[in-house]
């Protein structure tokens, strides 16, 4: 019964009893328990990652009207294990002029920067690594390590396309970090907390997705850019720069980049769930009613969280497989001239309106927040429409002046 209600605390007590029974000091047993807990958590993440390879391949197959892996095991579920065995026994080629240490460091750092995010991922109210009071910034800090991994890998390959791809990817990632940080400020303001547990609990009554839908959209876009997935995958634009920063990587090292990307996407799905969809909770007060009290069980919460995270991951995949690639100048212009100003406007709106509406009843607060976001979104779309029309007119004018040439080409 105790195990069901708070598994981590129960296991902690059991193992601690055992270790102190062997004569270990309390501090040392804490370290050992941390080691065990972290190893279990990371292994869970890696197994999930293997599963994600199968999910990704299956989903992309369905998007492209194929069947996907279906030979090995039921529905091809053993396929990723076969992939891993293949990657491990493949010859690992290090290019001639490569910087050996940095060449190996790149992929390791790439997946480590994702794994460390699991330290703060609140899987449920009782099952989680650690509840940092600066968790939101920790997310950004892990992203910084990811950026570093790409530039290290791209530089160490000693290949101009790898370096070019790394440069593009880094320019992309650092640019989109700004709207992402601003979008992260909005849940921080709404929840008055930077810890993921605090943000989750603040959404018990109302998801932040309803309080600030624009922040959700901004975070989703910048998260996809941070992941380097399509439509922002110009780091691996095959037609221009062969394969981007991981062109020279073979075997398991390439596998680590690939696995890191998938786990990163899922983890960001999880963070979208935490920041905007109430994480493991957010049942609008339903769990307080006696009939639904089982919703506060940590295992039920974990299932709810993983389902929400999987949904976020699915949305990211959906966007990836239905959008073409964006050119780098469009991408950077979109970020600096559109997304960042919009994020700043939403931030100012949230700060002021949250303060003004604080004294009013809850439903006015929610309605005010929601409608202000809708108004901002509407104005943005109008501005975009006017701007787009202007652009179209200049393009039409240009093409009519040298239309003769165009016709001949056509």
């Amino acid at each position, binding site marked *: 019964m105790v195990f069901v209600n708070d598994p981590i605390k129960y296991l902690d007590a059991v193992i601690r009893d055992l270790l102190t029974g062997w004569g270990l000091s309390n*501090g040392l047993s804490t*370290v050992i328990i941390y080691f065990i807990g972290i190893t279990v958590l990371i292994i869970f993440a890696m197994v999930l990652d293997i599963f994600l390879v199968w999910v990704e391949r299956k989903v992309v197959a369905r998007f492209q009207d194929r069947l996907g892996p279906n030979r090995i095991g039921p529905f091809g579920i053993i396929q990723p294990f076969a992939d891993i065995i293949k990657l491990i026994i493949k010859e690992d080629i290090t290019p001639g002029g490569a910087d050996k240490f*940095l060449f190996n460091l790149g992929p390791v750092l790439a997946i480590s920067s994702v794994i460390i995010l699991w330290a703060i991922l609140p899987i449920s109210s009782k099952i989680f690594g650690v509840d*940092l*009071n*600066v968790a939101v*910034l*920790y997310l*950004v*800090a892990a*992203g*910084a*390590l990811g*950026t*570093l991994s790409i*530039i*290290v890998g791209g*530089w160490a390959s000693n290949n101009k396309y790898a*370096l070019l791809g790394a*440069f593009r990817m*880094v320019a992309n990632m*650092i640019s989109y*970090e700004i709207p992402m940080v601003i979008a992260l400020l909005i849940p921080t303001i709404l929840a008055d907390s*930077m810890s993921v547990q605090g943000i989750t609990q603040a959404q018990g009554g109302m998801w932040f997705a309803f309080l600030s839908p624009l922040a959700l959209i901004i975070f989703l876009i910048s998260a996809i850019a941070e992941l380097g997935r399509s439509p922002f995958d110009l780091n691996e634009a095959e037609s221009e720069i062969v394969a981007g920063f991981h062109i020279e990587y073979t075997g398991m090292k390439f596998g680590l980049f690939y696995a890191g990307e998938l786990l990163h996407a899922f983890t960001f799905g999880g963070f979208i769930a935490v920041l905007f969809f109430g994480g493991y909770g957010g049942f609008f007060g339903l769990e307080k009613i006696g009939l639904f009290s089982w919703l506060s069980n940590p295992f039920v919460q974990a299932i709810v969280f993983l389902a929400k995270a999987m949904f976020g991951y699915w949305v990211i995949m959906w966007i990836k497989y239905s959008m073409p690639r964006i050119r780098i100048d469009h991408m950077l212009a979109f970020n600096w001239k559109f997304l960042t100003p919009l994020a700043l406007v939403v931030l100012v709106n949230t700060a002021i309106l949250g303060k003004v509406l604080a004294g009013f009843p809850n439903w006015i607060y929610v309605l005010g927040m929601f409608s202000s976001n809708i108004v901002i979104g509407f104005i943005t779309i109008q501005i975009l429409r006017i701007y787009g029309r202007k652009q179209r007119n200049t393009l039409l004018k240009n093409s009519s002046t040298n239309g003769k040439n165009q016709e001949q080409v056509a």
Partner: protein
Amino acid sequence: MTADRIIFLLTAGVILGSAIMVVVTRKLIHAALWLVAALFGVAILYGILQAGFLAVVQVVVYIGAIAILFIFAVMLTRKETLEKGTQTRPNWWLPGILGLIILIGLIILITGHIDFNRTAEQIPTNIDTLRLLGVALVSPDAFVLPFEIASVLLLAALVGAVFVASGKKE
């Protein structure tokens, strides 16, 4: 020797070792990456000092932004970094001796001060230093002016740097 001290000494070793590599490595890219290692060590130090906000800000700002800027700058000025031969001035031993003298002097000063031998007390659990930091940065009788001036400084840096770097060629 407690666990605290062992962790501190390991971190200090990482910081100082990487710092030495920063100033002696010939390849500039490696120097920049050693700087990242040193800065990461400093972030761990902030973690030991229980300044969590500064630890993550150290990673976000220094590793995520400043180090990237350094790497970009190194790659943009490529010829000089590939240059074979020495990267130090001919009279490099002079600053070496100077640094050593200053270091010895500082260590004598620090160890001579009795007050510096004390250890820190636990931060009371009911105090949230993160929230206190926020209050200190925005409340009018604390540091709101430096806070705003920092943003003006950064604006000036942005304007100046963009102006200089754009540099219309004559």
